[in-house]
């Protein structure tokens, strides 16, 4: 191949790369431009460094290609004898150094902005659990768990195909709802092992470390739904604890907050009424599927080899109801069974214990009322 043809091919190649740049993001080939100003800065910095690498790559690979074509024994090329050149060595030490400084300056500025979560309008505590997230709105009393959505869970249990589930593995039962245009401070910690809260469209990623608090922030410019995933290996269901953030306009957000408060009030009220066995079973299954099935499995069969006992036919689920309640409330020390007293409300606790005692052939016939649970606390 002659030098001119080589040169033309390389120019075409470089041009193709350049044209691709903006199209790349749409084809899922490139990072998101994100919906925050800081995220856009990060995207721009990524683009800058990538193009610097491309240009250097074109030069370096161009030189290699040229040499491979021209400096062959089969062309009759005789080897030259030079093997040092101090000027060149200095040049190709200093020039890359200067390029690095050119990268470091905008990088430093962006990093300093990333780290400054002061004077925020709203603070939300995010706690990573195996394998779900808990959201606490620190200035109101809204607090809830966010679990993998039932549809995605159904795929794991073989009841659906992934292609039939919208937002497979990227959907939750209760998303994090936030207002646009406000500076939101995320205070991140974990309950058990290290997790990491990552939403690409918000350009936020911060590790959730048990016993320690990390903080980061975002100002979301556009309403919308933004999806992310846990980004630190945290055990078997690391791939099954997604994050969904719904950003609403100020009015919609206020409406949502009001809705949450009245729902909370209703939940408290429902703890005082008497629940039928059917109602308890329905609610109990819901609680079981989100809070217990990860370890004890959908049909109560557990994973005994991994240390998660079966509940179907178990001594606890078929033994005295007070003891069953105690195990769920206080956990079992020395095992992975957590204390759910603080995680489940009276209604949820009564329902799930009832469900466990009557499902999968356990058929104990007894049940708990939310008021029973309240009395036991």
């Amino acid at each position, binding site marked *: 191949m002659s030098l001119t043809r080589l040169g033309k091919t390389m120019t075409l190649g470089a041009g193709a790369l350049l044209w691709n740049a903006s199209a790349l993001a749409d084809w899922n080939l*490139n990072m998101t431009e994100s919906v925050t100003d800081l995220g856009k800065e990060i995207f721009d910095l990524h683009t800058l460094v990538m193009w610097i690498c491309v240009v250097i790559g074109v030069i370096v690979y161009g030189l290699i290609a040229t040499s491979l074509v021209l400096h062959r024994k089969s062309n009759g090329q005789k080897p030259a004898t030079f093997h040092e050149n101090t000027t060149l060595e200095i040049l190709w*030490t200093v020039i890359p150094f200067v390029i*690095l400084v050119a990268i470091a300056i905008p990088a*430093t500025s962006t990093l300093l902005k990333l780290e400054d979560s002061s004077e925020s309008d709203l603070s939300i505590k995010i706690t990573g659990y195996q394998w779900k997230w808990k959201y606490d709105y620190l200035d109101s009393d809204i607090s809830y768990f966010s679990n993998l959505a039932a549809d995605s869970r159904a795929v794991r249990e073989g009841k659906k195909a*992934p292609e039939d589930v919208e937002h497979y593995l990227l959907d939750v039962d209760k998303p994090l709802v936030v207002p646009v245009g406000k500076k939101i401070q995320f205070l991140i910690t974990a309950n058990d092992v290290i997790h990491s809260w990552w939403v690409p469209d918000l350009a*936020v990623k911060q590790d959730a470390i048990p016993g320690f608090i990390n903080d980061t922030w975002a100002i979301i410019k556009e309403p919308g739904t933004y999806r992310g995933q846990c*980004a630190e290996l945290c055990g078997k269901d*690391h791939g099954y604890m997604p994050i969904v953030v719904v950003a609403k306009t100020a009015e919609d957000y206020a409406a949502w907050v009001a809705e949450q408060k009245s729902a909370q009030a209703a939940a408290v009220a429902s703890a005082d009424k008497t629940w039928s066995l059917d109602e308890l079973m329905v609610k109990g299954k819901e609680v079981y599927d989100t809070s217990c099935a990860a370890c004890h499995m959908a049909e109560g069969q557990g994973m005994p080899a*991994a240390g998660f006992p079966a509940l179907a036919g178990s001594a606890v689920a078929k033994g005295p109801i007070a003891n069953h309640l105690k195990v769920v409330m206080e956990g079992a020390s020395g095992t992975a069974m957590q204390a759910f007293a603080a995680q489940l409300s009276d209604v949820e606790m009564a329902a799930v214990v009832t469900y466990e005692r009557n499902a999968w052939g356990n058929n104990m016939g007894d049940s708990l009322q939310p008021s029973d649970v309240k009395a036991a606390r």
Partner: protein
Amino acid sequence: MSEAHDDHHGAPKGIGRWFFTTNHKDIGTLYLWFSFAMLMIGGAMAMVIRAELFQPGLQLVDPNFFNSMTTMHGLIMVFGAIMPAFVGLANWLIPMMIGAPDMAMPRMNNWSFWILPFAGTMLVGTLFMEGGAPNFGWTFYAPLSTTYGPASTEFFIFAVHLLGFSSIMGSINIIATILNMRAPGMTLMKMPLFVWTWLITAFLLIAVMPVLAGAVTMMLTDRNFGTSFFNAAGGGDPVLFQHVFWFFGHPEVYIMILPAFGIVSQIIPTFSRKKLFGYSSMVYATASIAILSFVVWAHHMYTVGMPVAAELFFMYATVLISVPTGVKVFNWICTMWRGSMTFESPMMWALAFVILFTLGGFTGLMLGVTPVDTQYHDTYFVVAHFHYVLVTGALFAIIAAVYYWLPKWTGNMVDEKLAAWHFWLSIISVNVLFFPMHFLGLAGMPRRIPDYALQFTEFNQIASIGGFVFGLSQLLFFYILVKTIKGGEKATDKVWDEPEGLEWTIPSPAPYHTFATAPEVK
């Protein structure tokens, strides 16, 4: 310790030869076959991973076993395949390159090797233990590994201790050999680059393998003896684990690449028929990389919540490493430039190294920029980066070395037609396997997940196909190795066209004992 043998006794007979040998050539062979076996085992695990990731949904394995596969794949490739292969090359080549009759401590050399099959068997054996194999990633972060690791974790810790001990003994041997046993006239600045890079690597190993031993010991006591190094409830800090681990971990990745730089620095001059450009710069660049490697570890921890000052320091130090690395690449190019190149198999692999390792270096630079790493960290972008530098980098250099020196070891030339098939199948499939992972990471796919959202399907399928072809291509390598050992066109002493180095002044195959008398080095 170094009784003189008559040359014409040659190698001892029988299987005992391999258990009791103190001969650096035999021990080099043992290391290389061991590492090849581990490459196949680790590769099989990669096949399980790629098979599961071929489609969304869980088809083949459960998530816990998948986590064991990713963990064991990493451990086996790092500690079982790449590191022992480089030690095997060191054993075979360093004494011959410096005109020494053997390594400084031949008996310790034997022990250094024989620890490995024991440790490797124990590590692979964890797959069959109750509770399953380690499943917390090859980086075994606390508290996932300390509080929630399976029962086999203690065996994992023991295996790591043994592997580390073997590396440390091997490094002591290598340093003593290089510093004390060079032929008269071979000053440090006349040593082949492979010897230089191994000298520096051996110092890195002695400095950081003990720190890894400290980390796993702290893990052992946290798990069994009531300490709380990494447990917040007891006043400890999980992030401390990451600092200790990566203080070892970052130099470790340079340990896995510096010998590769040395190999490539010897192959390219031979096939360019031109001396290596900038010998002293290459030595200083290698030393700079090694020193800098000690102060960049926290670039693996950018999202852990470090304060700005620390993040800035680590960002600056990390991107700085690209300067000496770039110097090396430019020197290789200048070696080729206006040379008279031929493209036998060692040269093909060495060229592939230069091109593709550089690509891995570019993504490394991108990853070093802290604010952008917020979007790259723990995604497939990182997986792409380190597989480029470790597979198309370290592994390709090892393969290049084998093709280059195999005629010296066996006395037979390699069948170049078969070798060309091995090369082209590998280089195409390895890019089909790893290049799409850049896109997956940028598009948002995290690491270490057994199942993924639907938009990641196509690139995962492409990668899996590349993976299967790449894996199968290495079976061809096995066939080529066996074929060459058994026979082939006879190799001359020089093998290639006027290569530099003492190893080309002795017969091919190299006699069992060489340089019983030191050669003269001008």
